[in-house]
């Protein structure tokens, strides 16, 4: 080890778990920091404003190219880039800079720097944290123009040719979308938090990330050896030999454990006392079936069908739906595929329907309500499902049920669709299991009545928790109150499962609650029969189930039901299952 490079430990925020050791790669634009100010003689003012305009045009062209090349899987992150594109020509920015060059007879770089600083300070004075953080957008736009003015090449992330750990002040959405994923081992940034763009990308890619380090870009140099401990939020620069050895072992252990869990993931999830649970995957597209199979999923517990209805001008026809459903059914056969019928809601407005003026879409016309008001659209989907059921093990799942009538009406439509197919002599299978999502408190309360009408329940925890606690998770002011361990939520889930058991029907759980290992002891104690989750979560959930005994979890549940707050329940989980849980990887 070099003697002049001292080991430095930096503490930041955990953006994404995992450990990596490697060479740093700085993505910061060196040299742009020092901006000179000089006066422009009157006869050259025009030339100077043109120089600025050219730089903006170049910057916009660069950005347009980046937008064009955004990989498919990051497509929905590109909207922010479109906004950046508009910001380049914004009156209060572009216009102001040109005016400043003319009025003060100063160089374009200085005018750009001044205007950027003014705009940023305007944003920083806004009390709202979300709007305040828009200062970063101005900064990204300004930096791109500045590089074109000064003539410095943008560090082209797309051309990195070795495996590196990216170190940046802040990764802009434009930058993250250019990254060649196979070249990156981890991310480190000065800015950002758990909800930042970089953090989301890192977690999607299962790469370690430490964010909010403040001055990582000043301390770390390109090619420095660094260690990133994503779970702890620690970065070690110039590690000493001992540190390196320790982390290499840790990284190896982590990788082994991850591989181990993945390797055993196709084996059944059998509890310590021998009860087998079905662990299935949630999907949105047929392509995701592969991920479910790779991660050892025992079927599809939730196939969301909204995708084919979005971003288009016409509703999909029966044939189009049929082909997709058939493909998924065949790929998964003989394992089950649970198709949830159309659940359009506020944040997934369909472009074929004129958006309605609902101030409270979560309580409005969505899911089964929409389908029963539009029986033509609903029947097309039901026909496609019945036809696909001839090719695999398909189950039907009705979303947002709040009372018996909705089930009766839906089954009538299903029977009609089957009879129609019969008379048209189209191959289909009308003998499919019909289940309902329990995600509205009213459905939970009358679960015993609903159980008479259906073959299974699936608890959608995201909505059930939101409606039970009257918490909108998207609302920053109350989001902290959203807690799946609230005593009311636990009691409600138990009530649903008990009602189902009395009528001999099974209860599944999909939604985020099912994918977090800390909830498992409670859910197993309650008697949930099957879980469905994002494919990536399947291996760790299966692994954890094998360590828990159902009979013990039933005793544990009795204690849980005595707790009067989510915090007490959390404490009880840690006290009772802490060791088991911390040994599982992917822990949050």
């Amino acid at each position: 080890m070099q003697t002049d490079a001292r080991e430095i430990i930096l503490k930041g925020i955990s953006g994404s778990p995992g450990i990596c050791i490697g060479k740093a790669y700085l993505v910061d634009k060196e040299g742009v920091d020092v901006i000179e100010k000089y006066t422009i003689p009157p006869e050259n003012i025009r030339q100077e404003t043109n120089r600025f305009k050219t730089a903006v045009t170049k910057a916009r062209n660069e950005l347009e190219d980046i937008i064009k090349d955004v990989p498919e899987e990051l497509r929905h992150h590109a909207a922010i880039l479109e906004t950046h594109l508009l910001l380049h020509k914004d009156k209060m920015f572009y216009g102001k800079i040109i005016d400043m060059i003319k009025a003060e007879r100063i160089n374009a770089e200085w005018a750009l720097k001044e205007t950027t600083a003014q705009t940023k300070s305007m944003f920083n004075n806004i009390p709202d944290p979300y709007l305040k953080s828009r200062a970063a957008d101005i900064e990204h736009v300004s930096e791109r123009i500045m590089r074109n003015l000064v003539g410095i090449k943008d560090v082209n992330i797309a051309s990195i040719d070795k495996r590196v750990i990216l170190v940046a002040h802040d990764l802009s959405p434009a930058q993250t979308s250019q990254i060649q994923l196979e070249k990156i081992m981890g991310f480190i940034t000065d800015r950002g938090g758990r909800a930042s763009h970089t953090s989301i990308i890192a977690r999607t890619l299962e790469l370690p990330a430490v964010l909010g380090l403040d001055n990582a870009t000043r301390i770390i140099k390109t090619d420095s050896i660094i260690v990133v401990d994503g779970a702890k939020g620690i970065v070690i620069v110039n590690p000493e030999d001992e540190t390196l050895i320790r982390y290499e072992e840790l990284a190896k252990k982590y990788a082994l454990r991850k591989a181990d869990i993945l390797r055993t993931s196709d084996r059944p999830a059998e509890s310590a006392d021998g009860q087998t649970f079905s662990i299935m995957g949630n999907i949105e597209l047929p392509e995701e079936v592969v991920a479910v199979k790779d991660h050892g999923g025992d079927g599809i517990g939730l196939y969301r069908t909204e995708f084919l209805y979005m971003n288009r001008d016409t509703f999909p026809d029966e044939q189009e739906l049929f082909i997709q459903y058939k493909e998924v059914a065949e790929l998964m056969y003989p394992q089950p595929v649970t198709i949830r019928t159309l659940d359009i809601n506020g944040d997934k407005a369909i472009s074929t329907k004129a958006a309605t003026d609902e101030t409270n879409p979560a309580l409005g016309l969505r899911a089964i309500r929409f389908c029963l008001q539009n029986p033509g659209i609903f029947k097309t989907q039901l026909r496609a499902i019945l036809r696909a059921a001839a090719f695999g093990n398909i189950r039907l799942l009705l979303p947002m049920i709040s009372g018996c009538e909705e089930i009766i009406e839906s089954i009538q439509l299903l029977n009609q669709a089957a009879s129609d197919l019969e008379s048209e002599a189209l191959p289909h299978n009308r003998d499919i299991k019909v289940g309902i999502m329990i995600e509205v408190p009213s459905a939970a309360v009358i679960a015993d009545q609903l159980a008479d009408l259906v073959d299974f329940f699936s608890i959608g925890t995201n909505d059930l928790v939101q409606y039970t606690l009257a918490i909108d998770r998207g609302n920053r002011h109350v989001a902290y109150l959203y807690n799946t361990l609230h005593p009311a939520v636990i009691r409600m889930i138990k009530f649903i499962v008990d009602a189902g058991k009395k009528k001999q029907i099974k209860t599944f759980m999909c939604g985020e609650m099912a994918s977090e290992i800390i909830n498992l002891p409670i859910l197993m104690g309650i008697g949930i029969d099957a879980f469905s989750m994002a494919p990536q979560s399947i291996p760790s959930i299966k692994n954890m189930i094998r360590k828990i005994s159902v009979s013990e979890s039933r005793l544990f549940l009795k204690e849980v039901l005595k707790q009067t707050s989510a915090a007490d329940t959390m404490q009880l989980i840690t006290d009772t299952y802490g060791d088991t849980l911390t040994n599982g990887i992917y822990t949050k």
Partner: protein
Amino acid sequence: MNMLDNKLNKTATVINELGLHARPAARIAAIANEAQSDVWLYKNGEQADATSIIDILSLACFKGTVVTLEISNPADAPVLNKIIDFFERGFEE
């Protein structure tokens, strides 16, 4: 309305959770740019040019903020209605 005054205005409320942030501001600016004359956005007497994302954002409109949109040329009424409609749909979020 005064016949000599060509100004038209309408009121709208910000209803989405995140407030009037960058994405909807960009959309509003794009619509306002279709107008022939000025389009102004007012909040508590503060004025912003609706064709500028930055100016719109500087008004800091959170959820619940009531704003007034004003056009100076009646020919721009469709633009006004389009923006109001966008507000009423919670910026499609």
